[in-house]
């Protein structure tokens, strides 16, 4: 069994369950990491010999979907909170991705469309993928936005996925994926991290649901991972139970 990375997902979800509030982390990895979906077989989805030779960790996440490569130039979005409704994956994808789309559009990215189950595309090329995990009345959304990463590195490490949306039409990574920069949209990963943080603090994408009473406000904590040394920050939104 592959190791889980609590700082990518499990820890965030557990924190949201305990606190009853919404928590988000927008960050960029400073090294390559292969992250498999919950049901993936790593030897089927990636070149394990390449990962081993390059000392690329291979871990699994809580959510479903396919295997991805995290690398510099990609913005990782992790958001957790109470569902506010019964577990409805498609509805959750629509709501959260609509929030992401609106933010990107406000930042000057035009022409985004939703394709497949939960992809965001520019033209017919994917620029954002995501997954969900539902547990104990909470959900964890994990997405990756390709800002200015080098697509070729993905093909070096990942095989053609064992499952793909129909619109992919069997295209290889370099023909299927694109980045914001490649499509002519400015902005560094750091710029987008700031925008996502500010938007999340002002208006988070999920509705809140009453869970256990919150006795005291939580303090913001900074997460540091010893394993990856990623630059990240933690945003948290205080639950307003009076509105729930």
């Amino acid at each position, binding site marked *: 069994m592959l190791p889980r990375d609590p700082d990518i997902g499990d820890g965030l979800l557990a924190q949201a369950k305990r606190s009853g509030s919404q928590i988000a982390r927008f960050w960029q990895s400073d090294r390559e990491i292969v992250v498999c979906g919950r049901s993936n077989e790593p030897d089927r989805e990636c070149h394990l010999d390449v990962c081993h030779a390059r000392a690329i960790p291979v871990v699994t996440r809580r*959510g*479903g*979907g396919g295997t991805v490569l995290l690398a510099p130039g990609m913005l990782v979005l992790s958001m957790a909170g109470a569902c506010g409704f019964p*577990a409805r*994956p498609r*509805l959750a994808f629509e709501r959260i991705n609509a929030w992401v789309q609106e933010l990107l559009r406000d930042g000057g990215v035009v022409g985004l469309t939703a394709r497949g189950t939960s992809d965001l595309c520019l033209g017919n090329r994917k620029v954002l993928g995501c997954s*969900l*995990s*539902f547990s104990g009345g909470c959900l964890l959304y994990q997405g990756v936005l390709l800002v200015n990463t080098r697509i070729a590195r993905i093909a070096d490490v990942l095989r053609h996925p064992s499952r793909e949306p129909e619109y992919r039409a069997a295209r290889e990574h370099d023909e299927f994926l694109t980045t914001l920069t490649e499509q002519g949209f400015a902005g560094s990963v750091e710029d987008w991290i700031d925008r996502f943080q500010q938007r999340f603090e002002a208006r988070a994408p999920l509705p809140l649901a009453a869970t256990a009473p919150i006795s005291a406000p939580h303090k913001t904590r900074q997460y540091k991972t010893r394993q990856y040394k990623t630059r990240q920050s933690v945003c948290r939104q205080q639950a307003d139970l009076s509105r729930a």
Partner: protein
Amino acid sequence: MKQSVRAIFVPQLDVNDVEMELVSWTVEHGASVASGSELCVLETAKATHDLCSEHSGVLYRVAGVHVTVRVGEVIAWVGESLAAVETHLASTAGSPDSEGAVENDSGTELRITAKARKLIDRHGLDAEAIERVGAVLKEKDVRRYLETSGDGGPAASAGTLPERIEQLVDREGALSRSVAAMARHLAETRRDLILATVETEVVLGRLPEGGEKCSEEHLLSTVVRTVAGLLGEFPLLKSFSHAGELIRYRASDIAVTMLDEDHASRLLAPVLRGADRLDVQQTSRRLAELRASIGAGELHEEEQLGACFTITMLEGLAVTRFTALQNRYQSAALAVGSPREVVISKDAGFESVQSVSLTLSYDHGLCDGFYAGGFLSRLEQALKSELD
């Protein structure tokens, strides 16, 4: 103390989901579970769902891992003990929703349900070679075995090919969910009916010198309208068999296969509701609207459900004759070939005419060739008079 045994069902997560994958069990078979504790992980549409138990007790697992389970399917039981669950299952063996009576496989200690036995006999399998979850071999164990071993013959490990073939091919990965689902859908339909076909050639009329063929669009609209009008006289073709019962559609809603070129060229089958109440022009307009919906990515799933009959025409392709496969919950489908020019002898000379082939696929378990042929003959006559 009264023993209670509760079933654990696959929940409905999204409205349109009918099945999902059981990714992993969190609790071992025979272990204790508490109400609210996690039992297993289900995955659908890129989302995982930690399924929790509503009851406390001992877990009796029924489904395996990395298997497809259907919404509403029982994947486990929770009772006071494993024995309590087995007693409960044995006592309910005669109920309509159960697997049927449990018997011992002859000469062995293996216990098999009636539904599993039926499937084993149909495919000529060796019951001992089938892996099972739990003490009794059930229908889902056999179905899982059939999925992984392909044609139901001697079990082959997944992915094994003869060496010579392995040297000549590239593995492209597992089939996409949609393709695999379509294959299963067609395989299930095949199991429930006996496919037979009848064909005819419809001469549309003399081709004037320098004249053009009847447009495919006009031909298709005319065929749809004419078929819809005839189905009332041939009700078996708007019926299907299900669990030994004859089921007949009340309305003449016709599905027409269309290609979605913008989405990996997938085939869709939007339905014209009340096609027998439309004239040819209205039919043509409605087909155009449906094509526009597909092009805009706005065709809803409900618009592809509930047809009594399907018509397929491979528009734009030089395919003069083919066989359409029936969709689920239908027993008949009509394949319309591309109009073509043929030369026939007439009087003392020859004449160029337009011709189109019609191939009707039907369920020989419901009606015979005379019935199907009668429908096709009426269709041929009606089209000739309409299009000549």
